[in-house]
């Protein structure tokens, strides 16, 4: 089972996670820029974070044979902090980088006017840089948040097939299914979605444009729930090809629209430095 986790915050995870993920079949990840739990107070703090997403974290992932790409954006929560909003001015620099395969996570947290402005502005940046967009949907007042999200997406003029609407569930999936957008589902130990519930949604709505992620971060989450979902699919009668479509080909197709997804040499022994393993680096 080859797995592409289209949404996971590896900055918050340990090398043990990378080892377990690689052993479970996770060979590629996309790490969206988001908030860090502790609020940031300046643009420079974001710059260091973005630099890590296109510098240190891909290097760290590569040590375990995992290919790492990122999405970059000002997240909805911190779009409300006037100290952070100038992040929008440094984004274009990052949207030119090889490892950046979408603008994200953008969208709504509390549906404020500041979030409206940041969301619309960053959808325009996605269009200008010819990149897809990863859209977070709010955890509170979710159904109305999704409706408003879809209205802003439609108004922006971005092609729906270049938008991934994330963190959907049994209630909100219905709102997105017929819009042409891709549908993301975050599988969590308790909240959001679970593997058995995800399998039911796949039975009802099929596998087209459906993406499954762990959204693992600094909270209670599990980077192996992508694999658990694949196994639950097989037990429910889905074929290996169905699992491969949801866990590999769909995310590759969505992020591949950036023209920057580099999955070359994933089968090569990773990574050696002129014959020397770099896994002992820093020992």
């Amino acid at each position, binding site marked *: 089972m080859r797995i592409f986790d289209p949404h996971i915050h590896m900055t918050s995870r340990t090398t043990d996670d990378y080892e377990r993920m690689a052993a479970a079949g996770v060979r590629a990840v996309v790490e969206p820029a988001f908030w860090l739990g502790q609020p940031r107070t300046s643009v420079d703090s974001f710059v260091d974070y973005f630099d890590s997403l296109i*510098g240190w974290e891909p290097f760290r992932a590569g040590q375990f044979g995992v290919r790492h790409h990122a999405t970059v954006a000002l997240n909805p929560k911190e779009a409300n902090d006037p100290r952070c909003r100038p992040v929008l001015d440094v984004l274009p620099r990052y949207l030119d980088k090889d490892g950046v395969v979408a603008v994200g996570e953008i969208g709504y947290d509390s549906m404020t006017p500041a979030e409206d402005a940041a969301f619309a502005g960053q959808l325009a940046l996605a269009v200008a840089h010819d990149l897809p967009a990863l859209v977070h949907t709010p955890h509170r007042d979710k159904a109305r948040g999704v409706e408003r999200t879809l209205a802003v997406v439609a108004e922006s003029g971005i092609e729906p097939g270049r938008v991934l609407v994330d963190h959907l569930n049994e209630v909100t999936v219905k709102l997105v299914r017929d819009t042409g957008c891709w549908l993301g589902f975050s599988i969590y130990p308790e909240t959001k979605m679970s593997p058995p519930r995800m399998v039911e949604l796949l039975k009802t709505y099929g596998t087209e444009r459906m993406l499954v992620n762990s959204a693992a971060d600094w909270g209670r989450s599990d980077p192996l729930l992508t694999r658990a979902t694949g196994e639950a699919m097989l037990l429910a009668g889905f074929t290996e090809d169905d699992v491969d479509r949801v866990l590999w080909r769909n995310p590759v197709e969505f992020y591949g629209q950036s023209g920057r997804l580099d999955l070359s040499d994933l089968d090569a022994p990773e990574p050696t430095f002129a014959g020397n393993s770099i896994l002992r680096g820093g020992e």
Partner: protein
Amino acid sequence: MTPDRLRAALHDVSDPQWLDAALRRVATEPAAIARLFAAAARRCGRGPLPDPPGWTADEAARALLLTALPGDHAVLADSLYRHGDAAEKRAVLRALPLLPIGAECVPLLHDAIRTNDTRLIAAALGPYARHLEQAAWRQAVLKCVFTGVPLAVVDDLDGRADGELAAMLAALAAERYAAGRSMPADATDLLARLGAGSHPTTALEA
């Protein structure tokens, strides 16, 4: 290494017209290099070149872009490094010996050597490291051994290695052997050439 040799090596890249146009553009419009530098790997590829050995297509294309600038090489190299992803930083480091900048970009070497990214550490120890002060150079060579970077990447290793470096390597070897671990063969070979270390098998068997 010369720009002409890099240009010849990139003769077969997937999009040679893009590279030609980019080189002409930075010669007359230096600020354009920021976006062209970021896009170079997508346009020219990332694979190793048959010649010169040790160079990849993206490194060569980016180094050429830097050499095509009409002036302000040190300022622009610094900016591209500071704002670059890991591959862009590495390309700037590789390009430094080709630029008319004297020792102005030594702070970039210090930055690269401070990281734990072995690709950056290695790229910082090419010919431009002749501008690095001896104490920093010794620490960088020691860090190569510590992080598994082969010493073959270090320019002028034997010309510059001194008794102090030998003492530092011997101390690392003593710690490793005490822990039942080994030293990389290229480091023990260097110690032997410096006449300052017992052979590791002797130490392990002792």
